[in-house]
Structure formats: C-alpha cells, structure tokens
C-alpha cells in the first residue's frame, strides 16, 4: 500500500528566507506525486505534480519540487517565502494506473511566516 510521510509537523521561517518541506513516500511502482496547499477556511489547492520526465517540477506561486527516486523523496522548495505562504502543506501520492483516482496524503506541515 502507498504511504506518505511528512516528518515536519510545523515549520517557522522568516519572510524572505528559503523554504524546504520534506516528503517521503512509499509506493511499489512509479508514483504520481503532488503537493497541495490549504489556507485557513479554504480547500486544497494543487501547487504542483510529478508524473514522469524532468524530476524538477515547477508549480504555482514560485514553488518547485524535486523527485528523487533513490531517496523516495519529493521535497517542496521556495527560494524566498512571502507572508501569504503561511498555510498547511500536504504531500500526496496517487496510484499510477488511473492517475489521481485515489490520493494518499501525508499528515501535513504547517508553515508559519515571521516578519
């Protein structure tokens, strides 16, 4: 069965600083990987995804993530965070037969931005 681990429950960074959120997955075949963001009172918004090809993927809002098969990781990065980036971030893995028919989510990382 597929699973996702986000080891950091809560991260605090200063505005303008760089950010890396960790995600490790377990899946028997080539995974479909996603990062979602949830702002307070909002739904889950897709930041970026990896299906195949270039292992460095670009997303919205200046985010990127790198798929590393050898480490079973898909870490999310941003070179300079903005106060509006404060939110909950979820990594997810999808079965690769039908894409994201069924997503398995991590427990999330709450990001706090300090001035």
């Amino acid at each position, binding site marked *: 069965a597929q699973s996702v681990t986000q080891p950091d429950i809560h991260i605090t960074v200063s505005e303008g600083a760089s950010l890396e959120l960790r995600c490790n997955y377990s899946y028997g075949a080539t995974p479909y990987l996603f990062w979602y963001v949830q702002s307070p009172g909002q*739904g*889950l*918004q897709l930041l970026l995804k990896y299906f195949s090809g270039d292992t460095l993927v670009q997303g919205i809002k200046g985010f990127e993530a790198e798929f590393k098969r050898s480490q079973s990781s898909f870490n999310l990065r941003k070179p300079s965070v903005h106060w509006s980036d404060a939110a909950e971030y979820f990594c997810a893995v999808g079965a690769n037969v039908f894409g994201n028919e069924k*997503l398995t*989510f*991590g427990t999330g990382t709450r990001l706090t931005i300090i001035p």
Partner: protein
Amino acid sequence: EPEVTQTPSHQVTQMGQEVILRCVPISNHLYFYWYRQILGQKVEFLVSFYNNEISEKSEIFDDQFSVERPDGSNFTLKIRSTKLEDSAMYFCASRDRDRREKLFFGSGTQLSVL
C-alpha cells in the same frame, strides 16, 4: 478559476442522526470524490464516483455511508447514523475526463457529532 462548492461549511448533529453533506462540483466535470480529515490526522480517501456509480471506496466507507448525484449539479454524501468518530472535515473534489492530474477540492464541511 472555477470552484467546487460545499454546503454547509459547518454542521453539528447528534449521535445517531442522519446527515447529508452537499457538494456542487464544477459543471463539466465527470469524476467526483469525497475525502475526509479527522482533526490532527491525514486527509483520507473515502469514495470516488463516475457515471452514476461508485468506482472505488475505502475501508472507511461502510454501509453507513452513501453517495448520490440526485440531479445534474449536486453530489451528496449521506451518513445514516452518525457516530462520534465521524466528526471530521469532509472534502468534496471533482475533475474532468481529460485532466486526470488535477483534482479541484472544495473548502470542506466541518462535521461535529455530539
């Protein structure tokens, strides 16, 4: 950008009561989903629905749960006899036929069972 709409945003019910959570998916979407998130836990898949039938469901989705698309716009999740452990945020999601990689999620309904 189009949105998935969920109502109500917060619902309180007594244990043993029936609840119906409502969702209006994006109009041209064909695949519909329910996920839930118990406070402090992971977002979990409940069920997927296509062509007026369930295509996949999780172990959580037992006989107490049902889904329905009663008309051309709504997609509902019914819990027949709520339990305390059903308290959670329930998310509806939809996608179109071609863009399998992009699920659109609603903002959720917070269900509190007392």
